[in-house]
């Protein structure tokens, strides 16, 4: 991250250190003088919130791991003893469990913000792909974390999800046995999941560093989708973005505390208060809410795919479901190239805007379907919504670029900002001739 550093150490020790390990310079350039577009709205605060959430999950995780035992015989009880007997144990455990959910709340807002404002477009493809990698790692971490309390949902969730791997042709069963460390989900599985659940967040942290690095190379997008063109377009990160992010963070924490202290079980499942029983499957196995859309896609494929008019099966329903589910995430990697429009922000894309909201509603509905049993009318609904999910990326996105007539865009961020001021009737064009009054 070279460039025009404005860091200027004044003290002797500051200069001495700067010549050897310019850590202070890195921090200064990344979080103090780093220029951000002046017109970022509240949806752009979720990157910062996510970073804090990752740290919060790692810290509470390390702390509650001090009280956890990863043995099938005692795991369930150790979580209860943590909640009942350890000072602040109940709060810390709820914080970690609710935190996982809130982490996904934030990441979904972050992803949808990216989709709305076209944040994945040239030159930010790598930034976007790193984000999808983080999302994948988060899913793996969350899944393995959910297994650790060793309740009924933990156990049967592990059973179902490791079952995905048995869908792989030829080697599937062997792969699954290697994952489980046995012929069924058991102590060996629990132990390795604990180990990996501890490891993965640090890998996420590594990719987050790359993600932020990529962000600082290309700079942030903004609601207009117009690149930063002049010094007038930007303001220094500190104090402007810092304060805005802090405010958003505190509000987000208030929301989280509402759940942690008043509804700690709302986002979980009652069956996970029953110790794991390998001989008894719960009536409805459902994953945590943040996996529900993918769970619906998994169950939408209940048919074999073969050569028509013959009995030859190319992909059986099990493999098909797993492929569709993973495909739903893999397709995200290609979004930068599937979107053919050269306009970034949906604010200037009248059609895309409508389809964006349709996609969002469809995604929420997919989530609801994921919580329904796979029977009756729910199955065709799952199929329809699954189709729309893929159609959005594979059909709508590529075609819109050709058929959509974008609206005129402002020439620069500053223009847009002043246009906004004019629209609201305040200070008629006052600022447009003079340089905007940025600090520093």
């Amino acid at each position, binding site marked *: 991250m*070279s*460039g*025009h550093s404005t860091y200027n150490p004044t003290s002797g020790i500051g200069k001495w250190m700067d010549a050897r390990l310019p850590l202070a310079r890195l921090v200064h*350039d990344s979080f103090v003088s780093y*220029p951000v577009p*002046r017109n*970022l709205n509240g949806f752009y605060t979720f990157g910062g919130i996510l970073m804090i959430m990752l740290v919060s999950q790692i810290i509470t995780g390390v702390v509650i791991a001090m009280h956890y035992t990863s043995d099938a015989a005692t795991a369930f009880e150790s979580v209860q003893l943590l909640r009942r007997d350890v000072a602040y144990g*109940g*709060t810390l455990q709820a914080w970690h469990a609710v935190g996982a959910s809130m982490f996904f709340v934030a990441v979904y807002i972050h992803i949808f913000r990216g989709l709305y404002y076209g944040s994945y477009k040239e030159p930010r493809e790598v930034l976007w792909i790193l984000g999808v990698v983080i999302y994948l790692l988060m899913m793996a971490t969350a899944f393995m974390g959910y297994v650790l309390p060793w309740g009924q949902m933990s156990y049967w969730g592990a059973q179902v999800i490791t079952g995905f791997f048995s869908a792989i042709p030829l080697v599937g069963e062997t792969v699954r046995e290697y994952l489980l460390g046995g012929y069924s989900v058991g102590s060996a599985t629990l132990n390795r999941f604990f180990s990996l659940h501890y490891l993965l967040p640090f890998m996420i942290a590594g990719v987050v560093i790359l993600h932020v690095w990529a962000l600082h*190379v290309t700079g942030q997008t903004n609601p207009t989708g117009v*690149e*930063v*063109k*002049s*010094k007038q*377009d*930007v*303001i220094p990160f500190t104090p*402007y973005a810092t*304060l*805005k992010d802090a*405010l958003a963070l*505190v509000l987000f*924490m*208030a929301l989280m*505390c*509402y759940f*942690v*202290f*008043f*509804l700690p*079980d*709302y986002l979980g499942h*009652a*069956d996970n*208060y*029953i110790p794991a029983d390998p001989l008894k499957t719960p009536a409805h196995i459902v994953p945590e809410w943040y996996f529900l859309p993918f769970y619906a896609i998994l169950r939408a494929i209940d048919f074999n795919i073969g050569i028509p008019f013959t009995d030859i099966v190319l992909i059986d329903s099990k493999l098909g479901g797993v492929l569709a589910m993973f495909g739903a995430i893999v397709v995200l990697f290609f979004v930068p190239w599937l979107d053919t429009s050269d306009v970034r922000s949906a604010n200037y894309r009248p059609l895309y*805007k409508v389809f964006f*909201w*349709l996609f969002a*509603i469809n995604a929420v509905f997919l989530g609801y379907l994921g919580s329904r049993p796979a*029977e*009756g*009318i*729910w199955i065709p*609904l799952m199929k329809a919504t699954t189709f729309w999910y893929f159609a959005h990326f594979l059909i709508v996105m590529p075609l819109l670029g050709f058929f959509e007539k974008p609206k*005129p865009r*402002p*020439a620069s961020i500053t*223009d847009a*900002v*002043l*246009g906004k001021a*004019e*629209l609201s009737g305040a200070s008629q*064009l006052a600022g*447009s001739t003079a340089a*905007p009054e*940025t*600090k520093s």
Partner: protein
Amino acid sequence: MRPSWPDRPLHQKQKANRQDCCQSCITLVAQFSIERLNSMKSIVSKLLAAATASIVAAGVFLGTAFAAEEEGGTAHYPIKKPREQSWSFGGPFGKWDKGQLQRGLKVYTEVCAACHSMNLLSYRNLADLGYNDDQIKAYAAEYEVTDGPNDDGEMFERPARATDRFKGPYANDKEAASANGGALPPDFSLLAKARAPERGFPTFIFDIFTMYAENGPDYIYSLLTGYPEEPPEGVEVLEGLYYNPYFVAGNALAMAPPLSEELVEYTDGSPQTVEQYAKDVSAFMMWAAEPGLAARKQSGFIVLLFLLIFAGLLYFTKKKVWADVKH
């Protein structure tokens, strides 16, 4: 490369002529605003139309879905939703009613404990209910637990101490199941949290705002008081099971109606009815599932209050700092 402005080519118009640039900017801004206003109107109306359409569509889908479900004949349990009660521990200021918990303990000890264990709790936990050390010691001493091995290598029986876990009625789950005709009486430690009949849409959304988290005790209460109801015509109850429309996993369960009038003697003048017993033991089970519930809500109130004040301060600080930046 960093995105800082000097690295990028200046805007063409700015490069060419600053005067021109400003002029064109003004025109552009003006044009842009009007267009934007118009287009926003159309976008908003389109969006509204789309949203309405999709909501209607979803509504129709759901309607047909529910209809289909009923016709499909796959039975869904419980037949009746739990009856919502008012609990002292509900809501943001929820607190334990110690008198009720003590009565609940009495019902548990004299009735439920004959079949149901509560193995995550220790006798010392009864201090929460307002008992002192001597009372707890005396309560625990009623039970014999196995300890050892002693210096001779033998296990021995001794009266339970405050630090011991609640002694269950059976040595292990297999014995418990076999003594009850194959149906294992569930452990009480977490039962009030492990039973939560589905709330359904849109109730589960309202629950966030009403802070409804008493599904478990409502369910237990409803189940315990739901036995007198007769099975409707056409509902077959298997031999050895007892019809109960509130049961979460079928139309009948293996537990016979456990409570009856005057079964447990209350010393505080509370009515000795099935209703009252059921309510007290449900509250007791909620306490058993989460003894720290009341403390959690108390600290939550302080934390939330603080965060809202902090957010207010940050809001005004941010406003002050941003005052001279149009954005």
